[in-house]
């Protein structure tokens, strides 16, 4: 039948969720959580380090930028991880002010280093370290950075 997907065994899918206060003291907890899942999936140490770093950057952004000027709402980071046999997909979400991912251009590193000023590296690192990165912004409701990486054995 044309267009019919090949019949394959169902992939093992799993889902993990973590919600915690948007506080930099919790970055370590988030990294360990992610590292544990990636380790169980069989990612290499090198890959685990890179996944931890990408997630750290996205969470550090939530802590630093998402809840500026907000005092009423609970300042939380939501981490959702979906695993398949060969792929990890991680979503970092907040309910803060949001941002326009398209307006944030990839820093020209040469320019950047000439300016010698800190900042603006997080999203660039995430895009460099992960296979795929996408955004869904809904200020005050849910702002998501979704990233995935495949396991190449």
């Amino acid at each position: 039948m044309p267009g019919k997907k090949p019949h394959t065994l169902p992939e093992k899918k799993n889902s993990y969720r973590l919600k915690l206060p948007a506080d930099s003291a919790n970055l370590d907890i988030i990294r360990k959580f992610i590292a544990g899942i990636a380790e169980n999936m069989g990612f290499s140490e090198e890959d685990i380090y890179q996944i931890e770093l990408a997630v750290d950057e996205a969470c550090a952004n939530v802590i630093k930028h998402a809840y500026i000027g907000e005092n009423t709402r609970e300042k939380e980071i939501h981490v959702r991880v979906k695993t398949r046999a060969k792929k990890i997909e991680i979503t970092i979400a907040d309910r803060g002010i949001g941002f326009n991912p398209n307006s944030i251009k990839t820093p020209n590193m040469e320019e950047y280093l000439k300016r010698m000023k800190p900042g603006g590296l997080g999203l660039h690192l995430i895009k460099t370290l992960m296979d795929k990165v996408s955004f869904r912004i809904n200020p005050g409701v849910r702002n998501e950075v979704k990233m995935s990486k495949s396991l190449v054995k």
Partner: protein
Amino acid sequence: MANFDIERKDNGDVTILHANGYLDAHTAPEFENALSTLIQEKRFKIVVSLEGLQYISSAGLGVFMGFIEEVRQNAGDIKISEVSPRVFKVFDLLGFPSLYEFYDSKQAAMEKFK
């Protein structure tokens, strides 16, 4: 909470800072304070040994960026030594080796200040 600490050793006019553990957005202020103290003391010849550093995020890289201009304007430098391959990779991804000198040993880094 990531564990992180800084040890400082003065050797003549060169200061070595040993950064150990996890350098992330939570611990970066500690590293920032250490560098800031040196600047206040007008000690601009700085070697940062990353032998004991297990992790760095962009918040840690940012600290290096925040001081390099002032340090160089005062005839000093921040040189980096003994960085592990995985931590170096983060510096490398962001092109830092074009701005900072990396050395295999503290001694080699200190020599360069002579």
